Each structure stands twice: as structure tokens, then as C-alpha cells.
């Protein structure tokens, strides 16, 4: 994901940015850990667990729980002290360059900013019959615990499904007055995904005036996210992208940014809290 790299604040008092984990006393450095080793439960296994914890920097490491899971695996819980210091002034995080919004916030932003439903037209172009990607993003069923774009009240979703030709896509986009186009490409034989995407972006360039062109988004497991410019699209999403990310990006581009460029800086400060 093309994003903004930021570091922790350096304006704090010297020393305050050096931390240790906290168990029950400041500076005790206590952490807990659980894991499985692929070996039968035995004294050796417990020793092995302690060794792993030691190597991870836990010293002393206390193996407080060991349980056999079948004949070949053992589960451990380990408590121990780590010597490592954390310097928050040296923390680097990659921030998304758009804020991640909940469905409610997306709906509200569109309702207030656009005063009509935002139209998204999507499909798989070329001979690609794999609708896995587009459906994960568009179907209400969604992906990774997030509902798809159909779930968003203020988004009008037109899912054209599989094997849509580029002219069909352009025609439908015009008929629906699409604000954003979502194209998924799973099949990558002979770089079909690259060629199809270039054909698609070229077709939109031809049939729309430059400033009226809908937002073009492609996604698929084999795309490189830095290729947007080369492909002639606004954004490339790679494997693991969730519907919420796509919805948030669309709102950022078509609602937030369109209203005033002044807001660009503030978007970068929203920290991505999710584990992915």
C-alpha cells in the first residue's frame, strides 16, 4: 500500500521514550508468551520451550504450563522477563494515506459530502471467470469479517460479474453514471491482468473527458501496488485488501479530497490499528 511513513514524536522529555514491558512493577520487563512445539510432552519438551524463550530474550523464563495435544505436539505458556528497551522515538509505522472509516462513517461522509448515493460499478474483465476477488469486496457477504460494499447504504453497487468486455464495462459505467470502477483480475497467464487493465484504462481515457473520468481501481493477488501509474489507474489493491479499505479509499478520493485539498495532511495522521 502506498502510504506515509511516520515516526514517533521526539518532542517528549529525554528518557520518557525509553520503555520496558510492565508486569506488576515499573521496569520489571515481564511478558507472557504461548506457542506449540511439534514434539511429545516431556521434561525435554519443557526444557526446549525454556530454551526458545531464552533465545527470544526472556531471562529468566518460567514455563508455567505444558500440555500434550495428541502424541506429537505440546502447548506451552511461558512467563518471563525481557531485557530489551523500547525506544518510542525510533518507532516507524507505515500509515495509510487515507483514513480507515467504519461503514457508518462512510455512509455519513457520502450523505453529507455528495448528497446522493455514490455509484460503484465492478466486474472481472477479459476471460477471467474468477469472481472471488470482486465478490469479496462487493457482495454483502464480504471478506475477513467485513461486509462488502453492497452493505453500505450510500453506495450503489453494480456488480457485472465475470467475463465482462471492456466496451461493456465502459457502456455500463456511463449508463450508471459511475463514480468509481472496480476491476478484479485473478488470472495472470501471459500477463493477462496487466494487458487487460491497460486496455481498460485506455478505454476510459478515450470515452471520458479527463476531469469527468471515474475513479479507476484494480485489484488482484498478483498486482504490484506501485504500478498504478504504469497501468493508468488511480489505485491498485493487492492480496488481503478488505471492503472497508476500498470503501474508505473511495470516500477519501471522491468525497474528502474533492471538497478541498487542504485536508490532505490530516488524513496521514490516522493510525491503522488493525493487525494485518
Amino acid at each position: 500500500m502506498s502510504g506515509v511513513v511516520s515516526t514517533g514524536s521526539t518532542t517528549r522529555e529525554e528518557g520518557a521514550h525509553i520503555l520496558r514491558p510492565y508486569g506488576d512493577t515499573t521496569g520489571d520487563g515481564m511478558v507472557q508468551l504461548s506457542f506449540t512445539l511439534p514434539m511429545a510432552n516431556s521434561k525435554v519438551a519443557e526444557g526446549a520451550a525454556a530454551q526458545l524463550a531464552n533465545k527470544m530474550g526472556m531471562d529468566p523464563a518460567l514455563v508455567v504450563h505444558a500440555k500434550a495435544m495428541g502424541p506429537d505436539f505440546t502447548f506451552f505458556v511461558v512467563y518471563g522477563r525481557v531485557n530489551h528497551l523500547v525506544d518510542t522515538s525510533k518507532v516507524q509505522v507505515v500509515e495509510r494515506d487515507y483514513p480507515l472509516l467504519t461503514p457508518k462513517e462512510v455512509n455519513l461522509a457520502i450523505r453529507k459530502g455528495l448528497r446522493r448515493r455514490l455509484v460503484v460499478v465492478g466486474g472481472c474483465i477479459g476471460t477471467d471467470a474468477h469472481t472471488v476477488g470482486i465478490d469479496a469486496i462487493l457482495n454483502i457477504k464480504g471478506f475477513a469479517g467485513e461486509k462488502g460494499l453492497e452493505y453500505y447504504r450510500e453506495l450503489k453497487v453494480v456488480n457485472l460479474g465475470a467475463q465482462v468486455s471492456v466496451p461493456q464495462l465502459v457502456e455500463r459505467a456511463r449508463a450508471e453514471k459511475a463514480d468509481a470502477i472496480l476491476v478484479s483480475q485473478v488470472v495472470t497467464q501471459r500477463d493477462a491482468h496487466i494487458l487487460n487493465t491497460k486496455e481498460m484504462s485506455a478505454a476510459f481515457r478515450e470515452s471520458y473527458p479527463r476531469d469527468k473520468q471515474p475513479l479507476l481501481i484494480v485489484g488482484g493477488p498478483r498486482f504490484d501496488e506501485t504500478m498504478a501509474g504504469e497501468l493508468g489507474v488511480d489505485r491498485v489493491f493487492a492480496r488481503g485488501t478488505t471492503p472497508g479499505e476500498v470503501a474508505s479509499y473511495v470516500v477519501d478520493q471522491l468525497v474528502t479530497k474533492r471538497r478541498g485539498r487542504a485536508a490532505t495532511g490530516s488524513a496521514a495522521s490516522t493510525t491503522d490499528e488493525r493487525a494485518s
Partner: protein
Amino acid sequence: MVSTTRSSAGKKLDLDPVTVRKARSLARQAGKPIVDLAKRHTTVSVERATLRLAGLQGADADGIPWVNRLLDAVRGDVGIEHGVALPVWDALVRGEADDLAVLAQKASAGSVRFRLPEGRDLTRAGAAARKQVGAGVRRVDARRRERDRLVKRFGDPDHQPWIYLIVATGDIYEDIPQAQQAAREGADVIAVIRSTGQSLLDYVPEGATREGFAGTYATQENFRLMRAALDESSKELGRYVRLTNYASGLCMPEIASLGGLERLDMMLNDSMYGILFRDINPIRTFVDQRFSRQVHARAGIIINTGEDNYLTTADAVEAAHTVTVSQLLNEYFAKEAGLENWQLGLGHAFEINPEVPDSFRMELAHALLARELFPDAPLKWMPPTRHMSGDVFRGYMLDAFFNLAGVMTGQSILLVGMMTEAVVTPWLSDRDLALQNVRYVMNAAGNLHEDFRPVPDGFIVQRARQVLGESIELLERIMEHEGKHGLLEAIADGTFGLMKRPSDAGRGLDGVAKKASGYYNPASEILEAKA
């Protein structure tokens, strides 16, 4: 079959029998026009399922199944409104090919023309079709008898609820050892999750498959491999381990038929899930669903319905009655198709926001309502997913409360909740911890339902009554819809969830045909004669 040892259940909520009868009668009134509509139509998948029952297997070099190739050829020549059987067996009787496989190859090469036989040709084609499809149905019957034998030999689980675990690696050869390990760890039922998007494929992939997206493709060969592996496990463990897959999406009837032929024991099979959550055309879904349930009835397969899905999109308190309405509709459609009470794995879920005061009491009320409305159905109890936050410790506690609600209200099939829900696909240790959780609760409180009696007119009883009342109101609203098929119109205008699904749109619509007057389908004829 699922033993119904719920002697102490039954009267805890003191539901008014007149109200319960009214709810069922409304569900019947809402469902009847849909059944009539389903009877008047056929679909490409129903016709392909007929060919599969007749024994046509395999795929061409591009992986397109021969049933699709043959059906498309027939459809191109004479359409499907008369059914695929007459034109296909007419061609066989005429000597165009020795068997279905050769006929399919010739047809896809364009060297066979199909026609609608008449007179004596019609009689002969019909008889030949009935004979061959009948042999397929007898294979399904034989698999059912085989299950009965194995259950008798190895036995059913000695506890309730049955423990249901999921595997989903995408690779059938990885799934097999995982499923066997899960059975060793205590799973009574193994479900193999399907690859994302299979429900929208208008064909069933062929052969053993090793790559899927977040799941493994449902294919006949994968079914066979997994069933064989679990037969080994059943022998090893001395209890019959059941296998579940998904008869849903565009190929519902075909997958049901393959499940019957390969002795699957349970199938996810909801009446409206595909319409609402996958945007499959409503008529396509209802026609496919009816045929697939007729097959399940014949095959002795327990269906699992998908009411839990309503609660993942809507609030579990506000939408509690939509679960009840869906259960009532699923029950009506299932019984109409010939399924018996012991085959109705009606679903519901523990999805109330834990921050809501009295959330556990409400969960008990909802679970008990389902139990008492459907006393003889093997209810499927689904774990929390929506409020699993990534805090695995809190998740583990929620799962314990879910398990407790399950045993207190006499649920029949318990889908084991994972504390790493929404974090990772379950690790070995997650599954082990989850099963410890289930075992602890069953051991500590498994018989608590004997002592658990909600106070008459107390919070739980009143909440259950309220949900039942709201269900009746919703069913009445459905009936008030203009048009001939109240339920179809209700689905079209977004009565269920947020989704508006008109009957003239959605996926798979082009695979629906109105039956012509000479329509013939030997599979339907045999299945309905029995039902």
C-alpha cells in the same frame, strides 16, 4: 439419527400453542405460493443434477464438466423447458452414442442433434431415462443404508450437543489429516469449508483439488476422499464421524446429488441465503433448493440452515425475530420437500453484543425459543463471530458462555467457537483450547438443563414471547405484500436484512426456464413418489 433426549425441555417457556400454530400456519401461507412457483420451473442445475444421478461424470480438457457440455448442447437445440431427460435418452435410444459420456463428447463436438421425441420414441426415451436415473437414486439409497449400518456398528456420540469442527486449508490432501486429527480430538462432525466464490460458479469443479481460496472446492472426488478418511477415523475411534459440506449457490442440486452419492451426512442448505447474501436470483434459488432438499430427504442427509448469517449483518437483538421467521420458512420448505424433523438442522447464533445488559439472558431466551418451537429438530448452535475482537482472552470467555447457553438450552449441534476468530485461521492450539472449553462446560454443566427453569413470566419467558410475537408480525407483513407471491415481493423490497432482491434479477436467472407442458424429469418423479 440425533437422539431426542430432551425430556426436561418442552414447557419451560410455556409458549401459547395457539400462537405457535398461528406462526406455522403463516409460514405455510407464505411458503405455499413459492412452492407452486418452484414446481412450475426448472433450472440448468436441476437438469445437470439429473444427469449426474444418471452417472455422468468427468470433465473436458478445459475442466468443464460433461454435464455442463451436454446440457448446453441440448439447450441449444431444444431448450430445457421440456427437461434434459427426453432429448438425451432419445439420442441414446436412437443409437447416437453407447453411453452418456460418449454422447456428451459428441454433443460438445457438435455431431449430435437433439430433438423432442414423440409417440413411441417418447415412451422409449422416458423409460430409458427412468431406468438409468432410477439406478442412480438406488445408489443413493444404498449409501444411506451403508450409513445406517456404520452408525449402528460404530455408534453415535454419547453426548449432546454434537461437536462440530471446521477444516479449511484449500488442499484436500491437507484437509484430510487435519480432519482426522480433529476427530481424534473430539469432533463428532467435520465440515470442510468451501473455497470463496464457489457458490457463484455455474459448474461443479472436477477431481481432487489442491488450491482454493479460504476453503476447499466441493467436488465429487474430494467428497469421496474425505468420507473414506473419516470412515477410517470412525473405525479407529469407535464412533461414526459425520461429514458436512455446502449444498448452496448456483449448483445446489448437483452438490446435493453428489453428497447423496458419496454419503455425506450433513449439508448446509438454506432457503434464502443465496438470494440475500449472494444475489442469486430468487426463483433459481427456490427451484434449486426444492430439488436439493428432495435429494437430501432421500439420502438421509441432515440439512443445516443459515440463520446465523442474519445476525452477522443485523443487530442480534433487533433482528432476533428474523431468525425465527427464517427457521419457520426453512421448516416449511424442508417438510414440503420430504425432509423429516430429525433432518432439520435449523440454525441460530450467539451474536448479541456482550456490552448489552442482560445479553446472556437474552441469548438463553432466543436459544430456548428455537428449542421449544422445534423440539425434534437437531438445532445447530453457532458461536460468536461479530463481537470477537482479537482480544483472544475475552473471546475465550465469550465462547465459554456460548457453550454454556448451548448445554443449558439443549442444542443439538454445537459449532465450536475459536478464540482466534477474525485473527487467524485456527491454529492447532486454538482448536485444542476450544475443545477444552467445550469439554469443561459439558462436564461441569452438561445436565444443568434439568435444573434450569426460567421463572414463569420472568425476563427470559417474556423475551421469548416478544420475539415470537415479532415473528408473527413480520410474517403478517410478508403476507400483506401485493402480488401473487408475498414472500417474493417481500424479498424484492428488502424486508430481509438490507438487501433488495427482485425476482427478475440476480445471478443464474438465465438458467431458469418455465416448464413446458411435456416436461419430464425422472429424478423428480422418483423423489416425489417417495416423498
